[in-house]
């Protein structure tokens, strides 16, 4: 059984007991435990079920690489699936649920699949569920999805808050083991700005557990000393519980801090995603131990040797009473010694190497432990937990030589440097035959803008396993980074660390080496996805020879752990099957994040009200109070309509239109773009920007103008007012202000940099209010302060003045066809003017109107709307706007584009009005069909609807559309098939449906 040892535990505090719940059952643990160590201490070794076969799974590691011990943590709006028990610090009242089991973890019906495992090899789904085809969607997939999969998605909205944090540093050091600490100390002493992050809560990494002795001191003491040294350096920042998640171009890195995961009921943000801009990135990310592939190696009770040692030393937990150690390298002997010291029986150390180990093996023998060399595990006994091991010769085929009773197997297949962050941005690896590992190739680092490497690996992450080598490599890397950043580093004597004489590792990819298929079918490579040695071999045989193909065919290295334990073993098997060298097969791509990070941290503050910036006009709060229905226009929210009690939206729109036509309406036009263009060359500039001749505009007058892209397509439109000889005020569409401002700056900065013109976007300086309708003048006269009579202010005039004591600029322009004034007022006074106009208009029946009424009013007049009548493929000539294109100018932006044959073709689709024969409303976007079919068998078309409304003014449906040769075909009737199956028939008419002479606005 697994249990708590009576003594020891360098991380736990036995005076503080925490209670926690798993699957409704209460357990106890100590402060400093992880969920995994606390469960092991409570003799709970079954921690999950595998993805495909629902095999029972126990914890296999003690860290970030854990594939098995995954739980759903928390409840309700704080539930999160697939959390690794090994990385979950225990806190009071922690609540966890096991995953991928039904009805419960002990009696999982899905486990029946396991019995069929032999007939479910790699590619089984692809081969089996092909026919009948409709079955995949309706039968196979739903059943498979119900059975497979790990945790369930949260059902409630996340209650926690998240945030980002931006820092710029000289060096980001990822990994707070002794290499990271030493490198930080050196880089810090050189005066660099250093950020050192460590994914766990503890500093120092494996060194204390492994018994390192540095400068004559036990590792713990050395670490404490270095930590206080680092804390005294103002230029060094350290963060525990913070993982280097990803490395990106130009020294950008994402770093994931778990701020309050380890505390219950904390006030702060749960996770903080650091966006680090670093001059150099130093990865001291350590190494991960590899499993060994022997039959039955997925049984609960089989663990990594280093993890067993961690639990014993860090948490005073032994995973079993009789722990068999199996290895191909010296490091696992440390586990045997640690167990033995803790009083746990180690029945034997099974070493695959004929020559056995070095000094540590000697120490084990001296401690009275039995060492079997050249030996392997032939198989394990036990159904839901290890009960014994059968041994055999490593170089044989698996004939059993001995049976050993044990309840735990501690295995070590060697160590793989954590090269993920080195590789994220293109760092290459080299295969080290002697050390049996991929390590970073220092000649092929990820390179930055200067062509030099910006990531440096050091310590175990760089392939060094002995403490003395690790510290020496950290010094080297710190120096390299410091000098790359143009600083110098004083020479410091190399640190002294004890070093044992070691025997070389032996590459062991299966146990025994010549294992027959019967054994290979029971050797698990990937615990999470149930991929076995036989599956990878089968993939290779079936032609999935690329490591990337084999991964996808077998699912090796997929899901939450991304093959941290399985990748190297898997590709070694692939290489072996293909008869290729391991480096020729290569690794799959390492992609960020290193381990899964929360979606909340990625979103940061951008959720709820902060999901997207909402632009509000100075009158926005008044519209909200008035119950307006809003619509998005760019990032603005504009009132679509102001419904009154008992009104439908359609009724309210009709009322607002009729109010403007018969009385007077108020429109918040503040979102209209307002760009000042000023300078001696301003006239020349606006002549280039607009298709019209703008430079001839007289001070005090307004003119409607069009702006085209270089290609000649209509881009934006609006009214230009000339403020003085050198100054124009250009109005743009609501959505176009920023874009047009940038367009102007672009031309001024890159093409006409010698023209004396400045532009300024003053859109938000003003609230702009349109007063439109036959009573508009009376309302302004009631407000008082300016002469707005026809004589004083003719159509298309503007004037500065004051209304109700508020400074204003009034433009007599109209987008509705009615008598209309648009009044610009400083934004801070917008509310005051709006209220004054409403009061003054009360007796005239004034009412605010929204964008839908605005649209219908302009359509009744046949006025185009950018984005309705235009879509980026329409030139002004298509819209009958030839009058707005100057023939007198030598050039304007878009002029040459419009001369291209396609854009000047005589049979282009052109703007017309459309009137249904029935009086109904044409469907928006409907196409006018004609005879015949095109090459794709579709009906030929000759036009389409661009705007369509019910006009309450005319009491019928009106529409605008683009029709081939439209203006020459007045009176023709076209067919518009709707998506409702009805063919709508409409007659081509002039688009000016209402008051075509413009008499109403010119009063």
């Amino acid at each position: 059984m697994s249990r708590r040892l009576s003594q020891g535990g360098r991380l736990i505090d036995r005076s503080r007991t925490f209670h926690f719940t798993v699957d409704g059952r209460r357990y106890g643990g100590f402060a400093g435990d992880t969920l995994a160590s606390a469960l092991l201490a409570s003799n709970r070794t079954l921690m999950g079920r595998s993805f495909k076969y629902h095999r029972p799974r126990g914890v296999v590691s003690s860290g970030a690489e854990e594939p098995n011990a995954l739980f759903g943590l928390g409840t309700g709006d704080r539930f999160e699936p697939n959390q690794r028990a090994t990385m979950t610090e225990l806190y009071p009242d922690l609540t966890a649920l096991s995953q991928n089991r039904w009805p419960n973890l002990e009696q999982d019906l899905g486990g029946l699949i396991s019995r069929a495992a032999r007939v479910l090899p790699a590619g089984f789904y692809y081969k089996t569920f092909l026919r009948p085809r409709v079955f995949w969607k309706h039968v196979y997939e739903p059943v498979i999805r119900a059975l497979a999969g790990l945790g369930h998605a949260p059902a409630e909205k996340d209650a926690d808050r998240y945030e980002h944090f931006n820092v710029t540093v000289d060096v980001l050091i990822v990994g707070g083991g002794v290499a990271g600490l030493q490198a930080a100390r050196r880089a810090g002493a050189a005066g660099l700005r250093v950020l050192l992050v460590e994914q766990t809560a503890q500093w120092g990494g494996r060194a204390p557990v492994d018994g390192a002795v540095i400068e004559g001191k036990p590792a713990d003491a050395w670490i404490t000393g270095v930590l206080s040294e680092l804390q005294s350096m103002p230029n060094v920042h350290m963060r525990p519980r913070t993982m280097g998640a990803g490395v990106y171009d130009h020294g950008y890195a994402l770093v994931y801090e778990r701020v309050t995961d380890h505390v219950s009921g904390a006030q702060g943000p749960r996770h903080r995603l650091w966006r680090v801009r670093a001059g150099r990135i130093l990865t001291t990310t350590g190494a991960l131990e590899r499993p060994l592939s022997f039959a039955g190696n997925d049984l609960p009770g089989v663990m990594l040797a280093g993890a067993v040692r961690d639990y014993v030393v860090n948490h005073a937990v032994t995973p079993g009473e009789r722990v068999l150690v199996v290895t191909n390298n010296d490091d696992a002997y440390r586990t045997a010694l640690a167990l033995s010291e803790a009083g746990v029986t180690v029945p034997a150390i099974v070493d695959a190497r004929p020559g056995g180990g070095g000094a540590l093996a000697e120490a084990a023998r001296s401690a009275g432990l039995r060492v079997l060399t050249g030996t392997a595990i032939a198989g394990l006994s036990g159904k839901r937990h290890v009960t014994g091991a059968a041994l055999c010769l490593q170089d044989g085929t698996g004939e059993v030589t001995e049976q050993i009773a044990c309840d735990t197997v501690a295995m070590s297949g060697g160590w793989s440097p954590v090269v993920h962050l080195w590789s994220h941005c293109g760092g290459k690896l080299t295969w080290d035959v002697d050390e049996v590992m991929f390590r970073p190739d220092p000649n092929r680092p990820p390179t930055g803008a200067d062509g030099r490497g910006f990531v440096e690996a050091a310590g175990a992450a760089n392939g060094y396993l002995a403490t003395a080598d690790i510290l020496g490599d950290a010094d080297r890397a710190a120096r390299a980074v410091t000098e790359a950043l143009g600083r110098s580093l004083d020479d410091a004597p190399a640190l002294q660390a004890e070093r044992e004489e070691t025997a070389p590792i032996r590459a062991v990819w299966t146990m025994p080496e010549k294992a027959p298929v019967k054994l290979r079918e029971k050797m698990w490579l990937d615990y999470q996805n149930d991929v076995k040695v036989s599956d990878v071999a089968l993939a290779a045989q079936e032609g999935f020879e690329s490591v990337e193909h084999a991964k996808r065919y077998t699912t090796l290295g997929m899901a939450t752990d991304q093959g941290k334990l399985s990748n190297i073993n898997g590709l070694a098997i692939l290489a072996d099957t293909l008869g290729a060298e391991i480096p020729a097969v290569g690794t799959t791509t390492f992609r960020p994040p290193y381990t899964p990070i929360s979606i909340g941290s990625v979103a940061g503050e951008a959720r709820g009200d902060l999901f997207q910036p909402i632009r509000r006009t100075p009158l926005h709060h008044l519209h909200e109070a008035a119950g307006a229905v809003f619509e998005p226009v760019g990032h603005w929210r504009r009132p679509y309509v102001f419904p009154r009690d008992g009104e439908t939206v359609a009724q309210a729109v009709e009322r607002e239109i009729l109010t403007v036509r018969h009385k007077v309406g108020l429109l918040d036009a503040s979102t209209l773009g307002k760009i000042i263009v000023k300078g001696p060359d301003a006239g020349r500039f606006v002549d280039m920007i607009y298709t019209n001749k703008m430079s001839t505009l007289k001070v005090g007058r307004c003119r409607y103008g069009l702006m085209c892209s270089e290609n000649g397509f209509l881009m934006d439109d609006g009214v230009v007012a000339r403020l003085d000889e050198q100054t124009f005020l250009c109005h743009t569409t609501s959505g176009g202000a920023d874009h047009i401002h940038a367009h102007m700056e672009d031309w001024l900065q890159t093409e006409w940099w010698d023209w004396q013109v400045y532009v300024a976007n003053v859109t938000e300086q003003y609230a702009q209010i349109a007063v439109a309708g036959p009573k508009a003048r009376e309302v302004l006269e009631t407000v008082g302060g300016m002469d707005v009579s026809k004589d004083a202010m003719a159509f298309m005039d503007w004037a500065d003045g004051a209304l109700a004591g508020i400074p204003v600029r009034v433009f007599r322009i109209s987008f509705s066809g009615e008598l209309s004034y648009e009044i610009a007022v400083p934004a801070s006074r917008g509310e005051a003017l709006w209220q004054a106009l409403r009061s003054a208009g009360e007796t005239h029946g004034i009412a605010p109107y929204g964008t839908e009424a605005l649209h219908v009013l302009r359509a009744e007049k046949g006025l185009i709307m950018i984005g309705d009548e235009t879509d980026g493929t329409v030139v002004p000539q298509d819209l009958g706007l030839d009058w707005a294109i100057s023939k007198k100018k030598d050039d304007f932006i878009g002029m040459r584009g419009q001369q291209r044959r396609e854009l000047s073709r005589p049979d282009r689709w052109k703007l017309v009005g459309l009137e249904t024969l029935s009086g109904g409303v044409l469907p928006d976007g409907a196409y006018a069909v004609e005879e015949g079919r095109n090459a794709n068998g579709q009906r030929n078309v000759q036009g389409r609807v661009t705007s369509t409304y019910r006009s309450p003014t005319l009491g019928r449906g009106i529409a605008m559309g683009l029709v081939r040769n439209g203006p020459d075909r007045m009176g023709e009737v076209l067919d518009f098939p709707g998506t409702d199956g009805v063919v709508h028939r409409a007659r081509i008419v002039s688009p000016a449906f209402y008051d075509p002479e413009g008499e109403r606005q010119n009063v």
Partner: protein
Amino acid sequence: MSDVATPLADASFDGFVSVSEAPRTGMISLRGDLSDTALREVCGAVTGAAFPASRGASLDGSHGVLWMAPDEVLLLVAPGSVPDSLDRIGTALSDRHHLAVDVTDARALISVDGLGVRDVLAKLTPADVSPGNFGPGELRRTRFAQVAAAFWMPTEDSARVICFRSVATYVFDLLCHAAAPGGEVGYYR
């Protein structure tokens, strides 16, 4: 004037630093030749502050000159003195190509005050706000989360953030989120 509405209606929030709408400040955007003595002099005359270096914020109390671009400064003046200041600039630069416009109402100005102000800024802007690279006397034009913003530090423990009026609520809410209790980072000590 009671009918003058500020973008945030004097909103304020107390977190581990406080966030509040700053008193209404007159703002003039001035574009021109920043090396021109006449331009520099008139900036000093209307603000009482020295002319800043590139990326600088030169302040005399709540008035000052903010460097916005190689050909643009933002002048901070008393709200009531904007028309007079525009007149003085127009007169001083009458024979020079320039553009001066009132942008008082186009912007919102937010104060962030208290220890930890740099941490709050760093949650929202990618600009380097570390003491060696940024501090009183400096200005950054950058972004806060998804919108454009500029900021400067009147003192070591306070910042002023300027943004477009239409997104004042968004930026204010961002700052409140960043300053909410429990969110102390303790990075900038």
